[in-house]
């Protein structure tokens, strides 16, 4: 794979690459191969190979370089090193390139010629090499904080900031109205209904009973001056309930001739048995 036909045609742009290597270089190659993990991909390997062979990158022989690369991969195989796929793809591509360079060009115009492919690779290598050199030159420049300095004790920049708050009276009133509304909802109260209680009725009935030895209608015992309908109804109900309670205690007697007829009541008569 790595041997070049001795009588292969050379083109003007392809300087013959040094095929025969002195021994010290072979040793160096081995260390390159063993350092496979240290490379940043096949392009990096190609550039390193070119540098190792002290090839002027601007006059690079792509054919020679392709052979170096293929030898490198073979050596890695021989050393049973694990080779990532992209290195093998490059090897296949370079083998293809080599065949295109060595064989007479086809007339297929859709396919780039071997020379064109080689030029593309050369451009890529030169461009990357140029960028690496540029990176080095940039880093060699004087650097801020290392070789030249900014003002060490800058004056604090004084910025007088005036904050203008924007709020309208409308905002303010709406907010306050909102608060009062929330507040109103939270203190909702039920005011007590005014009703005539059972206790009141008992007290009143007890007091009045002594003054009523004869049958008297219940309505006569109701408190006076109640105009309110609800109050009146509650007074009737509680007075009737009170009369039942007092009858149970044996303090009064009740009489109703028929359903819905007026209810009569009087204080208990000891000598009469009916009630």
């Amino acid at each position: 794979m790595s041997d070049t036909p001795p009588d292969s045609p050379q083109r003007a742009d392809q300087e013959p690459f040094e095929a025969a290597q002195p021994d010290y270089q072979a040793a160096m190659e081995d260390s390159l191969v063993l350092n496979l993990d240290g490379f940043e991909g096949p392009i990096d390997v190609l550039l390193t190979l070119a540098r190792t062979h002290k090839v002027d990158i601007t006059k690079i022989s792509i054919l020679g370089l392709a052979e170096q690369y293929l030898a490198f991969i073979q050596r890695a195989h021989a050393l049973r090193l694990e080779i990532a796929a992209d290195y093998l793809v490059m090897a296949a591509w370079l083998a293809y390139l080599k065949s295109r360079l060595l064989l007479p060009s086809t007339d297929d115009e859709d396919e780039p010629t071997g020379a064109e492919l080689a030029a593309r690779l050369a451009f890529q290598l030169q461009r990357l090499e140029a960028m690496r050199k540029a990176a080095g030159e940039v880093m060699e420049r004087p650097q801020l904080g290392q070789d030249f300095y900014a003002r060490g004790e800058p004056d604090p920049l004084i910025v007088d900031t005036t904050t203008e708050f924007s709020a309208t009276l409308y905002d303010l009133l709406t907010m306050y109205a909102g608060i009062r509304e929330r507040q109103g909802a939270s203190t909702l109260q039920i005011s007590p209904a005014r009703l005539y209680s059972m206790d009141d009725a008992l007290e009143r009935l007890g007091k009045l009973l002594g003054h009523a030895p004869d049958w008297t209608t219940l309505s006569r015992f109701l408190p006076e001056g109640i105009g309110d309908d609800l109050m009146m109804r509650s007074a009737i109900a509680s007075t009737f309930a009170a009369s039942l309670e007092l009858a149970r205690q044996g303090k009064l007697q009740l009489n109703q001739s028929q359903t819905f007829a007026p209810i009569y009541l009087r204080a208990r008569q000891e000598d009469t048995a009916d009630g």
Partner: protein
Amino acid sequence: MDRFELMRLLEAILFGTSEPLSERDLAARMPDDADIAGMLEELRGQYANRGVHLVQVGARWAFRTAPDLGPHLRLKKTVQRKMSRAALETLAIIAYHQPVTRAEIEEIRGVTTSRGTLDILLEAEWIRPRGRRRTPGRPVTWGVSDEFLDHFGLESVKALPGIEELKAAGLLDRRPGLGLITEEGQLTREETPDEPYEAVEPDAAIPLDE
């Protein structure tokens, strides 16, 4: 290095250091034979008319902005800021209930007032402390400021519309009570006096500095 170069070096050192340097500090950073004292005087003279002066601070030397330029170096900036809802609510309560303590504001709002809220109102210069309440802890009471009245175009706090007026203006929308039994047995809200508040204490009941 000739004197011109040494002067340049001295200038660069004084420019780049983060603190004033004594002649001894400078000597440690300059070639041995440099006439530091002489060069400092010369450099001071060169900068005498400039926007930056070389000045001696105690026994140390430093570049400083020319003092006459100080006022021109200040940058004035106006920033528009919107008040948060919390701040506006607090402000409204202070306006309607002043003098009012922070605890009372919280009771009315129903939430605790974050520290920043009063700060913002103070920053806006819309509120001011008015006195202290004669209650345990003697809390500060707050009221609104003249700046507040200016900003909202009010002659006095009394010009703030009362509850009935807010209602009439449609700002306070009171829904009808629930569950009518009779007119007397109706569920009603707590009575809200039309006068916005009854001040708990007269203004500055207890002076602040007490």
